[in-house]
């Protein structure tokens, strides 16, 4: 927050509601995840570890809840009386939802987490003091704190493994909060390349690491402002709108239509306006 912002364009600094689309003239990065395609293979999580220099904390710390998976696969079982093994898990990849009205952003005492003009929820590691208020207020608990000093004292990348660290991404020290960035380092490069070529970023020109490795193509990522982008089309066919807290699928008047709609966002009723749309899994009973 600069003094200029304070004095001159306070209203620009914080958009009040996502329907106020001024900040997203060119780009609004968004994602859609098809739960029907997701096999729970965890490749996205592994790719994220490699791309974003996430520390592998080890079994013991993982059990203590000190893990750093920016994208995690959650497993759910239907509790319908079947035997445990027969139930068949359902999977849900959970990552930072890059909410348009993010609860984490307003509460950070130092303004370390902000909304970018591209609709990303950014995290400034240098600025973070580690109050962890953002994670306290995150309904998804999609933020991860550096509970230990992984790069040095915990030595998670012993020689020569430090050679495989991604040079485009900071290695975080202890005491800062971190979370999924939608691979902002790739977005920056793509935007820069596109700017040199005198055009906008094309659909498919930039992929997030999780999207890139997903064997079933369950994850799509792109610019919601671009009418040709796959993500935008998916959102549109599912009648999922960014600035609504209830989507067509769950609205009663369109019940007949609703049978075919699968798009929803998680904990929408909290009015966080997430940028990640999930496509419901098709159940056997529904077919």
């Amino acid at each position, binding site marked *: *927050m*600069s*003094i*200029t912002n*304070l004095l001159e364009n306070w209203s620009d600094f*914080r958009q009040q509601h996502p329907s106020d689309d001024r900040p997203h003239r060119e780009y609004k990065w968004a994602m859609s995840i098809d739960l029907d395609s997701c096999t729970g293979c965890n490749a996205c999580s592994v790719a994220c570890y490699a791309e974003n220099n996430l520390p592998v904390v080890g079994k013991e*710390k993982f059990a*203590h*809840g*000190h*893990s750093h998976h920016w994208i995690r696969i*959650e497993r759910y079982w239907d509790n319908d009386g079947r035997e445990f093994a027969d139930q068949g898990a359902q999977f*849900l990849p*959970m990552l930072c939802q890059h909410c348009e009205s993010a*609860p984490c952003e*307003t*509460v*950070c*005492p*130092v*303004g370390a987490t902000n909304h970018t003009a591209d609709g990303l929820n950014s995290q400034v590691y240098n*600025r*973070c*003091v*580690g*109050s*962890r*208020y953002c*994670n*306290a*207020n995150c*309904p*998804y*608990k999609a*933020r*991860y*704190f*550096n*509970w*230990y*000093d992984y790069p040095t*004292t915990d030595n998670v990348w012993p020689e020569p493994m430090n050679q495989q660290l991604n040079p485009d991404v900071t290695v975080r020290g*202890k*005491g*800062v*909060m971190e979370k999924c960035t939608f691979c902002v380092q790739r977005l920056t490069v793509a935007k820069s390349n596109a700017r040199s070529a005198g055009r906008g970023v094309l659909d498919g020109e930039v992929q997030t690491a999780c999207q890139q490795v997903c064997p079933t193509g369950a994850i799509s990522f792109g610019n919601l402002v671009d009418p040709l982008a796959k993500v935008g089309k998916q959102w549109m066919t599912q009648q999922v709108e960014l600035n609504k807290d209830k989507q067509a699928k769950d609205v009663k008047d369109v019940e007949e239509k609703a049978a075919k709609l699968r798009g929803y966002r*998680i*904990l929408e009723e*909290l009015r966080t306006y997430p940028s990640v749309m999930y496509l419901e899994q098709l159940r056997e009973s529904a077919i």
Partner: protein
Amino acid sequence: MGKDIREDIAWAQINKDVLKSLESPRRMYWVILFIAIAMIGVAVGCEIYQYTTGMGVANKNNSHVWSLYIATFIFWIGMSHSGTLLSAILHLMHADWRKPIYRFAEAMTTFSLMTAGLFVLVHLGRLWMVYYVMPYPNERWVWPNFQSPLVWDMFAIATYLSSSVLFLYVGMIPDLAICRDNIHAGWRKKLYTVMSLGWEGTDRQWRNFRITYLTIACFLIPLAVSVHSIVASDFAMSNMPGWHVTSFPPYFVAGALYSGCAAIITLFIILRYVFKFEEYMTLPIMKKLVRLTFAIAMVWTYLNLIEFASVWYGHDQTAKDQLIFKATGPYAPYFWAMIFFGSILPLMLAFKRFQTHLPILFVVSILLNVGMWLERWMIISPSFAHGHYPWTWDHDQWPSLVQWGIVFGSFGWFTLLFMVFCKVFPSVSMYEVKEMVYHRSLALKHKPAVKGDY
């Protein structure tokens, strides 16, 4: 009910009695001081370990990011409210029974705020960057986020701390002059000389003193209410089930006054016993204090029930689940202990028999504060353990010994500050006790002598 204070205590006797408390500490004093320092040692050790290793040793985790530090932080902030209640609010209400006991209550305010402030530092992941929270000019014009309740906290606590230090000090000036005039030469004499600011007790000085004192008292009251309301906003402004409650600010303020009053009872009994202040910290005053505590306990109970009721009848299923989880889940023993210590136990304060029974009051007042500490913990931890998102439910998280050690040590830190204060500064306000005695004796003169209450 007997008299709050005898009207025939000589002024010189008051000076003598109070000044005696500043002299030659008994062996017990040193023992307690040593224990307090040892407790601080434990906390410092834990903090050094946590600082060098990382916050992970506190055994918090990604879904349970706050724990005992924040709970104890609220506890100490709460503790600080009663001093202001006694010294400022009752001052404006001309309740003169506060006079013999407000000084140490005010000191308690200051020291518990100083303790609370430490928890903010202990809690931070990068405490070496804590100055980022303050708005200071820098070359990039980067400011803190003024929307964040934590920033409001920083302002509120800093303001409250500086104002209550000022209030404590200003109220002490005439007494410091008495100390200066009566104490033998040494470093203390120099200290009192400097701190009493050349007080001579002239009419002009008294007039200015009264106005200053009244002004600060008026300034302090809204601060006391706002500081805990803002601490409550840390929770009420967030969207966690169990925190997102409109009635939190008054609930927190009531809880703060409650735990503070209970702490005053505890310290009252200790000071009365240790310094033999039976003439000043009398049983009738204790009775009034206990009744005040009882009233506040009932207000707190009411607000607590309001919170439960509004959750229960509200439409927020998550908050309702959260409440049921609190009452039946792994935190249930602590939750019910909180209800028992906070709401059931104080009922016995309604009985006259217990209102002046010091040993019972001593135990009860400590238990009330245990209940209030549990209350703060029950606000923090169950909400994290059972939040909005079922996948992050973590019912097994338990604070590590590092956290308990630091919480334990904070009591030592508070004790140390308070013990040092009691020996360096008069813990009973001499000039106000004199005033009280004088007013009472005047009233006695004007009124035909009748036995009994007044």
